[in-house]
């Protein structure tokens, strides 16, 4: 997709030469930082982590893009909430161009219909759907807890029991990790685990996110999987499946009806302009293209979502157009794990793995205490 964007950009602007510097490691933040430390000079960086953007900003490596924003009129492409997401200390640094829904639960359409299921809206309905898969001899909800994917489950539970306000308070450590809202979220998860609606702990800890998704749409050994909407691209490219016909998704169910119904957890990618780059005007020109209707259209053609509101809904496939509608209609919050400093994020992941191993009341308390202990150290 990036290559397609660059190719078209080059056709439109032959005077600009685009050169990619590949970051091949799984931990992009570390590699980018190491490269910058090593004196690598680039004009643009794409990032997926607001906390990382802040780190680069604090180190004086970024330039604000407010002037270019005004000059190119990027307000037409991105609404206020995305602009806010790219803002650090009152100035805009990030131009978001990719967006993923992290509250979607994926399922295989044929199996879903064969079991006579309908999309669950409430917690009880969700549990009934999961039980139906269990009765059919399948793993009800697959989960890849090897590295990070288990944190999405917790985060969506938190969002549904605490609402977006508490969610963000926890992200910024304005409430402690042993707050009642965290306990409530873990208790909900405990309900599902003790009822056997997830695989056994060792299987979850040995499975990565893609393996868990594959169990739903490829091997069909599992019924449901909570995963970011980038899987829409993988399902089409790797498994040649038709979105909406072969597989589909529903939003994580409502738990507390008093809270906003479809608050959506999101992640995405933004462009950052570096202070050391020598071609700042070309960098702005590239961002302008990515945020144009044509640039957004290329992203949509690849099955990905973009926050770019210039892209008409019909340019997306059946699944992604529903996701984009959700972005427009509901409050969105950024994925919690990516808002946390790396060290706290790692502790958060590890402690949740401990919880999956032994989902008891006692573990809930020790897990919350351990994350809070680390949070106090880090903040």
């Amino acid at each position, binding site marked *: 997709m990036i290559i397609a964007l660059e190719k078209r950009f080059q056709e439109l602007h032959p005077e600009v030469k685009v050169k990619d510097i590949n970051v091949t490691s799984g*931990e992009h933040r570390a590699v980018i930082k190491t490269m*910058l430390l090593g004196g690598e000079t680039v004009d643009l960086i794409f990032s997926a982590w607001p906390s990382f953007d802040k780190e680069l900003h604090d180190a004086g490596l970024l330039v604000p893009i407010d002037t270019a924003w005004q000059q190119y009129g990027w307000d037409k492409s991105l609404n206020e909430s995305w602009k806010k997401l790219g803002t650090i200390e009152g100035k805009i640094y990030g131009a978001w161009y990719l967006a993923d829904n992290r509250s979607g639960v994926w399922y295989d359409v044929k199996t879903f219909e064969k079991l006579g299921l309908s999309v669950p809206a409430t917690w009880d309905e969700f549990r009934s759907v999961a039980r139906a898969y269990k009765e059919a001899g399948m793993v009800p909800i697959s989960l890849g807890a*090897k590295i990070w994917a288990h944190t999405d489950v917790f985060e969506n539970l938190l969002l549904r029991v605490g609402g977006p306000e508490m969610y963000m308070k926890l992200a910024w450590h304005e409430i402690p990790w042993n707050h009642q809202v965290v306990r409530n979220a873990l208790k909900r998860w405990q309900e599902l685990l003790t009822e056997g609606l997830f695989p056994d702990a060792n299987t979850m*800890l040995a*499975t990565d996110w893609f393996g868990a998704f594959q169990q739903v749409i490829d091997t069909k050994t599992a019924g449901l999987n909570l995963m970011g909407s980038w899987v829409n691209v993988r399902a089409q490219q790797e498994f040649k499946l038709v979105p909406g016909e072969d597989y589909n998704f529903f939003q994580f169910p409502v738990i507390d009806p008093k809270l906003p119904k479809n608050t959506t957890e999101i992640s995405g990618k933004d462009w950052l302009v570096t202070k050391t780059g020598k071609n700042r005007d070309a960098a702005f020109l590239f961002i302008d293209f990515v945020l144009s209707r044509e640039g957004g259209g290329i992203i949509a053609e690849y099955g990905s979502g973009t926050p770019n509101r210039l892209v008409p809904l019909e340019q997306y496939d059946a699944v992604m157009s529903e996701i984009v509608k959700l972005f427009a209609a509901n409050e969105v919050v950024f994925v919690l794990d990516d808002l946390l400093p790396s060290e706290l994020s790692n502790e958060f992941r590890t402690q949740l793995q401990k919880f999956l*191993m032994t989902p008891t009341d006692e573990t809930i308390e020790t897990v919350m205490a351990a994350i809070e202990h680390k949070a106090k150290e880090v903040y």
Partner: protein
Amino acid sequence: MALKNRMKWIAYAFVLPALIIFTISVIYPVIENFRISFYSWNGLSPMNPVGLTNYIQLFRDPDFINALKNTLVWTVTTTVIGVLFGTIIGILCGLTDINTTVVRTAIFSSFGISATASGMIWLGVYQPDFGLMNAVLEALGLPSLARPWLGDPNRALIYVIIAYAWTQTGFSMIIAYGAISSIPQILYEAALIDGGNSWQITRFITLPLITNAIRLATFLTFLSSLKAFDLVFSMTGGGPIRSTEILGYFMYTDSFYYFKLGYGAASVIILLIAVFIIAIPVLLERSEKT
């Protein structure tokens, strides 16, 4: 005397290029690392001197202690398994009349490929859904033994150790095989004439004459295990629940994931001290012999 002095300077001149490269690529980074270990620094911010704080904190850090314990188990077991199997295979290959080129090449290739590639291979072996291990167990009619191998925090380290020991077996094998190949054939002939059986020949001729080679293999395998990182990185990422986190991985996460560069540097110095403690007696002993 003048000629001797001149020869000495010529010898130094020959060594000088290597010495310069070694100083730039090894000595300087070690000194710089030592300096950084006394600072709090995230790589982007100004460096803040903290004295011995990083070292003190390390020994209070349960994750470091965990990594230290895992490293101890890791280095000892990978060395024992790798050297034992490598030596046995090396002896068998060295003593047999059959052409073992294919076997030796196959086993040595485990040492030749990168640890990351080995990690990916072993991930395929241990994969819970499509992995080789579970497929073999099911084919043998033992599906109850199939399991998510790397998902068990109590056993994951054992399975990663097996994978790493596999990569080290080829190294020990080639050292043992090389040592056996250099034993004069006449000794074996004499033993056969004296009525020695296979075990006696191995026990009293082969083993004593390859002991030094095995010691060298043990020493080098131990050092290599001590600084291992990439296999763990590619297989488990130190998990689950830090059960496979060894010092090499701990240093990586602290330095290049958390970007606590001073803290990471302090753990490097601890590892360096451990390497020196192990290496110096061996090197001293070897220099006395020579």
